């Protein structure tokens, strides 16, 4: 049986790990390579680097971080933020990433998903989706770090991502992100039943039992969190022990 994955996410800005609340109020917390190594020791199943300054001038910084991390962390690495072309994907993968995560750029140019999947394989392409509730069982997709509502229906969008060749969806709820009240279960359920590719739950983990709850209540394949792990409130191992005690298969 496939184990459920626990994924610490490192939001990196100018080469330092940071974590904001609802995408605002950013605070620095440390060296990304050291953080990744620490998570690796705790048993992280995968590590995500999210380059929040992204796009332009800082691209090289994150690639250096990935290069250094890949020399001593032997679990899959995913890199997101500012990836807007097949060349960006290639450079990121060559620096040592196993997967790239595309978000805003994919919404604005969906063919990017297909081009990436055709060249590097579906398994390399994770589509990050930021969404917010607009009504009962209805959500719309946002871009630019949750700032711009694209008025695109979430379910239509994730189905399209799958069809274009996405290997995975990392689903971030803007409503629950940073609030620490648990993952957005209704949104997760809706997306998991709409696609066959793995779905990563993101945004909202605030306590130990939130992870097991997401795995017990929805079909998500993995759960991602940033601040909980950064501020050392929980270790990856504690989360796994809790899941295991509830009958969830983890590594």
């Amino acid at each position, binding site marked *: *049986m*496939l*184990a459920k*994955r626990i994924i610490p996410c490192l939001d990196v800005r100018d080469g330092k790990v940071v974590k904001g609340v609802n995408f605002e109020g950013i605070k620095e917390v440390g060296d990304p390579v050291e953080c990744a190594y620490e998570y*690796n020791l705790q*048993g992280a*199943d995968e590590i995500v680097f999210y380059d929040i300054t992204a796009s332009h001038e800082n691209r090289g910084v994150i690639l250096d971080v990935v290069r250094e991390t*890949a*020399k*001593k962390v*032997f*679990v*899959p690495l995913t890199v997101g933020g500012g990836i807007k072309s097949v060349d960006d994907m290639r450079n990121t*993968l*060559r620096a*040592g990433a*196993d997967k790239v995560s595309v978000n805003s750029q994919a919404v604005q140019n969906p063919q990017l998903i297909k081009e990436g999947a055709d060249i*590097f*394989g*579906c*398994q*390399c392409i994770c589509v990050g989706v930021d969404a917010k509730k607009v009504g009962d069982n209805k959500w719309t997709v946002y871009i630019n770090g949750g700032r711009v509502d694209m008025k695109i229906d979430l379910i239509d969008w994730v189905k399209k991502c799958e069809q274009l060749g996405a*290997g*995975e969806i990392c689903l971030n709820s803007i409503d629950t992100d940073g609030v620490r009240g648990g993952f957005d279960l209704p949104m997760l359920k809706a997306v998991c039943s709409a696609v*066959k*590719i*793995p779905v990563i739950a993101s945004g909202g983990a605030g306590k130990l039992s939130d992870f097991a709850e997401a795995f017990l209540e929805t079909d998500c*394949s*993995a759960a991602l969190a940033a601040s909980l792990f950064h501020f050392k409130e929980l270790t990856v191992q504690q989360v796994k022990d809790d899941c295991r005690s509830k009958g969830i298969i983890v*590594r």
Partner: protein
Amino acid sequence: MIAIIDYGAGNIFSVKNALDYLGFENKLTDKKGDLEKADALILPGVGAFPWAMNMLKLSGLTDVIKEQAQFKPFLGICLGMQLLFEKSYEFEECKGLGLIGGYVDKINEPELVIPHMGWNKLVYNHGCPLFNGLGDEEYVYFVHSYKAFCDNKNLYAYCEYGSKVPAVVSDGKYVFGCQFHPEKSGKTGLAILENFVKMTGEVK
């Protein structure tokens, strides 16, 4: 020296990083002479089967690979493992290296998430030097949509994903294949790579 065969396939650096970390001399190479000189060979690979076979052919290395695999430890990883078989049906029927009997075809599990992506538990089928020092509950990292179909005698370990998915295969002599990525499978994967290198007898 361990030769990591560089025929243009993706993510070969992670295999190199892992060998560097373990302190084993290694070289990314597409030179016939390096393959002949090496103590062991690793064939990595991410991508599609027909494309990879074509790249191998263009590199002019298929014959030397087939020859060297008869007498020195040889490890195929992920697509590199699938290339060891006689043929594949990925996109079209395509001949492989034919070092192990069997073929490669799509994982046909309509109820399950495909690709088979994530950490799955090894179930040992036959003893194998690659498993030295491993425990009963070892998870390794898989990412693939196609799997091998081979005789039980070549199946050294598998994992459960709907049905049995071959995880470690061997010809019983020098040729080994891992469907998972040992270079991305944490401590367990590093131990498997170390066991492989130790088969050369060159390493204390």
